[in-house]
Structure formats: structure tokens, C-alpha cells
């Protein structure tokens, strides 16, 4: 009985959160008359793929998606490479200064992108990087890097130092011990953190919209924004665009969700 009740409560809450997602998919399939019907229809009466056809043919969503993937992929790789060194030393070296650094890293997550975007714009303009994807990659990495450092640090801290010591006595250098022992043991952490960083970068809007004005370079987040104007909004096509944008994310998250959840709570190892 209790179990049923808890399940019911869980279902209601999940439904509450997921309804907008459903509404997005449903709306993407509706014809425009039905979209504005009153009362609204829960299930599309005459599902059509017209909106999807439109966004692929007229809005060039493939270009936006490709830009998104390039940006997020580059941010993920850059973040993981840079975070590795920082996180490893934070995990292994015990001193007051390391704590200070760690607090600094955590604090840097506090500042929101809208606050930082203006100084970034000025810096990148002086470097001549405005309207390049490099600018967006660097800017987004400043946001994902502290998160990745903090997460990777716990991953490394869970690899016993004894294992590296054993490898060093066995005949490896410090670097070799890291590459052959610590890194393979942290791989699940890398998968989880990499996925989360990718999602953060994938959904980033403030930096690309401010730093990229050429449509050919913009990611899908900015492309989606273009559907909602002050005097017109093209809901059916916007919903189709949004569906294409989030579906890969939902699939990746579902594939990885067990590992992500366990990685966030307990050890990312074993």
C-alpha cells in the first residue's frame, strides 16, 4: 500500500517535470491550426512531419547541430585535458595552499556567464577572436573547468596512493604510474564527467550569442533563439527544432544515467 502511494507520488512529480518535454514533441507534430486550438489537444489529431522538413530545408538545422557538436566536443576535450593536471595535484598533494586553491576553484563557479561575458568580449576583441569558434570554446571552458576539476579530484582521490607507489617500485616513473594505473582506474569518472561537461557546453547560450554574429558559426542554442522574435513566433518549427536539439542529449543521458547517478553520489570507481 505504502509502496503504491510512493510510486503514485513519484509518477505525478515525474509527469509534472516531463510534461513540457512531451508538449514539445507533441507540438512539433501538430499542424499550425491545431497548435493554437482552444481548448488545446493533448494528442496531435493529424501528426505531420512538415515542421521537421521545414527546419532541415529552410533553417539549415544540420549546420547549427554540427556547430553545436564541434563546440561542445572541443570544450569537453579541452576541459578534461586541463582539469586532469589540476585535479590530480589537488588530490595528491596535501597542504593548506592546496585547500586555498580548491576554494578558489569552487568560488570561480559562482560567477554567472552573463556577468563575465562583457569582459570576455573585450578581451577576445583585442585578440581578434570575435566571430571565431575558438572564442566560444575558451569562454565556455572557463565555466566547465572548475566543475570538472572538483569532480575529477574526487575521482583521483579514490585511487589509493599505494597503487602508484607499487607501480613506482615495480619500475615505472611517476608519469608512467599515472598513465598505466591511475588513469585507467579513473576512466569511469572521465566518462561521467565528460558527459556532464558536454551537456553543459551543449546547452550554453550566453557566450555563443554574444561572441558569434555569423549565422554559419552559431550553435543550435542560438539558432533556436532566432525562432522567437519580438513580433512573431513560429512555435511549430521552434518545437521541431528543439526536439532535434534535445533528443541526442536525452538518449546519451539515458544510456549513461546509471553511471552518472552512481558517479555523482558514490565512488566513480569499481
Amino acid at each position, binding site marked *: 500500500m505504502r509502496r503504491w502511494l510512493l510510486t503514485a507520488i513519484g509518477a505525478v512529480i515525474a509527469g509534472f517535470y516531463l510534461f513540457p518535454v512531451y508538449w514539445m514533441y507533441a507540438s512539433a507534430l501538430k499542424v499550425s491550426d491545431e497548435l493554437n486550438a482552444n481548448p488545446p489537444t493533448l494528442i496531435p489529431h493529424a501528426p505531420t512531419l512538415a515542421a521537421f522538413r521545414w527546419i532541415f530545408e529552410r533553417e539549415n538545422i544540420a549546420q547549427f547541430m554540427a556547430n553545436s557538436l564541434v563546440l561542445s566536443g572541443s570544450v569537453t576535450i579541452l576541459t578534461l585535458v586541463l582539469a586532469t593536471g589540476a585535479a590530480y595535484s589537488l588530490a595528491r598533494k596535501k597542504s593548506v595552499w592546496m585547500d586555498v586553491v580548491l576554494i578558489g576553484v569552487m568560488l570561480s563557479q559562482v560567477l554567472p556567464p552573463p556577468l563575465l561575458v562583457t569582459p570576455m568580449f573585450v578581451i577576445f576583441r583585442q585578440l581578434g577572436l570575435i566571430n571565431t569558434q575558438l572564442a566560444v570554446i575558451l569562454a565556455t571552458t572557463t565555466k566547465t573547468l572548475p566543475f570538472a576539476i572538483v569532480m575529477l579530484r574526487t575521482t583521483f582521490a579514490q585511487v589509493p596512493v599505494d597503487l602508484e607507489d607499487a607501480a*613506482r617500485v615495480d619500475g615505472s616513473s611517476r608519469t608512467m604510474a599515472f598513465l*598505466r594505473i591511475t588513469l585507467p582506474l579513473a576512466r569511469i569518472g572521465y566518462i561521467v564527467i565528460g558527459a556532464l561537461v558536454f551537456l553543459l557546453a551543449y546547452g550554453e547560450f550566453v557566450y555563443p550569442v554574444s561572441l558569434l554574429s555569423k549565422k554559419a558559426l552559431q550553435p543550435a542554442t542560438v539558432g533556436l533563439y532566432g525562432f522567437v522574435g519580438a513580433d512573431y513566433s513560429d512555435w511549430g518549427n521552434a518545437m521541431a527544432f528543439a526536439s532535434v536539439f534535445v533528443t541526442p542529449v536525452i538518449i546519451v543521458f539515458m544510456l549513461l544515467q546509471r553511471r552518472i547517478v552512481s558517479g555523482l553520489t558514490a565512488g566513480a570507481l569499481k
Partner: protein
Amino acid sequence: MASVTMRGVRKDYGPLNILRDIDLDVADQEFITLVGPSGCGKSTLLRMIAGLETISGGDISIGSDRVNDMPPMHRDVAMVFQSYALYPHMTVAGNISFGLRLRRVVAEKIAVAVASAAAVLNLGQLLERRPGQLSGGQRQRVAMGRAMVRNPRLFLFDEPLSNLDAKLRVQMRAEIKALHRRLGSTSIYVTHDQVEAMTMADRIIVMNQGCIEQQGTPETLYDRPASLFVAGFIGSPSMNLIPGTLQNGRLVLADGATLPFPASAAQEGQAVTLGIRPEHIRPQPGGLAADVVDVEPTGVDTLILCRFSGVQVIASVRDRFRALPGTPIALAFDEDKLHAFDTATGKTLRQ
């Protein structure tokens, strides 16, 4: 194989001094144990020999090489860790062969070496398993295999048996000894368990508070402890230590009772401590009057806890003995097995 020499070795962590003035020679093919209470610096010393800790002062040499600044990978030593430190992502065979693969030994030679180590350690069936699928005793064997397969010039053991149950510990103890006899490799073995130290070593180094307290064969340490610390640390149950004052060649206790005291360098009236092992005290009619506090049969021996003049001692007897607490008992000491210590310095007063 190689000898190890330490001269004036010290270790500091900032202002904290962990080890000081360690002078130690380990002969080629010798098996020595470093024993002492936790925090005495024995594991730190072992890690310094391995190269996992820096050396704050003095010199450590392995064979003819001064190794102070040599990274562990070039020292050609093997170490067995308390936690075993097996690589969880490799199979047993992978763990054992890791050191050989790092040295780019050819595959056929590796296969032969792994197979022979597995045969010695009875690991043949487990080579494809991962450490997570093994029991504690099996993991211990893999750790041993990983150390011996490289044929290093020096073996270091850091409390390798402390995570095993009592029965397995006795068994592994014998196996490590047998292995040492066969390989003849110089070995340094750290333990806090004095039984392990006594049973395995050619020579024991007793450490206390960052210094070497005494070194010698197990028998020497047991029969002729150089200090109160060693007297209390080596032997189980430990030596009875009875403080008092020396007057007319006898030990005078607080309440005026007297006990025999051995011939020693002590001065008349000096504060001294009498030491006597439990097996050298026995019940004997007409002896020293005491009360039984408790009787603890161990199976082999029976321990009798007795109290007299505010002093509690343990006697260990071979025969069965039964008595209720509070029963009067008369005790006799073996007068040629007494130890004399200076209470103030803790050093022996043996002449």
C-alpha cells in the same frame, strides 16, 4: 642480491622529527624485521629504502649504490604492501608481470616467469581472475608473486600479513620464510607483531620513537633486553616489571616488602626496576605470599595473575592450575633469570 647500509639517516616532516640517527647494516641474504609500536617510524624507514619517501639526512646505500636521490624505479627493489596494492584493472597474471612488461622483457620469458611464480605460490588456477574476485589470502599471494617474479636484489615487506586471519597468518609466515630460504634474497620486514618478528627474523631491529632501541637475534632480544622498552615489547605475555629501590642487594617495594635482585651495576639506594618473565615465576609452597587475581588457561600454559604489595604480576605455568580469585598463593622467582633496569633511564643494569 645486495646488502643495505644506513648511516645517520633522518626524516623530518617540517619541524617534526620522525627518524633520527639511524645506523643500520643489513647483510646480503639476511632476513631482518623492523618491529615497534605504531608511529615509531618503521614504515617510514622502509619507504625511504624503497625511495617512496625522501631522505632528510644521512645516507642509504643498496649494494654499492648510494640511493638517496635514485627514484624507486632504478633501485631494483620489490615491496609488498599492507594493502597488497594490487592493480584492480589487471588480471592476476597482469599484476605479476607488470614489472617485467615495464622492463620490456620478451613475452616468452614473461610467460615462463609468471608460470613459475604461480606454481610456487599455488596461483595456477587464478591467473585470469581479477584481484576483486580473490580472497585475502590469495591477494596476499599475488602481491608476493609480483615481488618475487622480478628477482630483485632486495625485498621489502610492509606489514604484509596484518590483514589476514590468525590461521592464515601463521601459514603465510612459514611460506615467506621458506621463500626466503629458497631465493636467498635480502629481506627487510616491517611488523608491529612481535611474534611475527621473533619467528621470522635472522635479526630483529626494535624501534621506538624514531630511534633503534636494540638489534640482535630473537634470542638475544628475549634473553638480554637492553632496555625496559624492549623488555616490555618482546614476549607475550610481556615481562613483569616491578619498580622499587635497591637496598642491601634486594629490591625494596613501596610497602617495605623485599624481592631478590640480580647482581648489577646499580648503586645502593638507586631507583631500579626488576624484570622477570612470566615463565620464570612459579607457585611454590613457602614462597612469596600473594593473592590470585585471575587464572587464564590458554591451553598450552596457564597464566596466573597475582597481586602482592600493590604489584601485579603474571606467572605462566605448564601444569593445569585452578584457583578462585582471592585465593592465597605462594610464588617463587627463578633467581638466575632476573633482569635489572635503571628506572630513570630505562637502560639495562646488566654487568
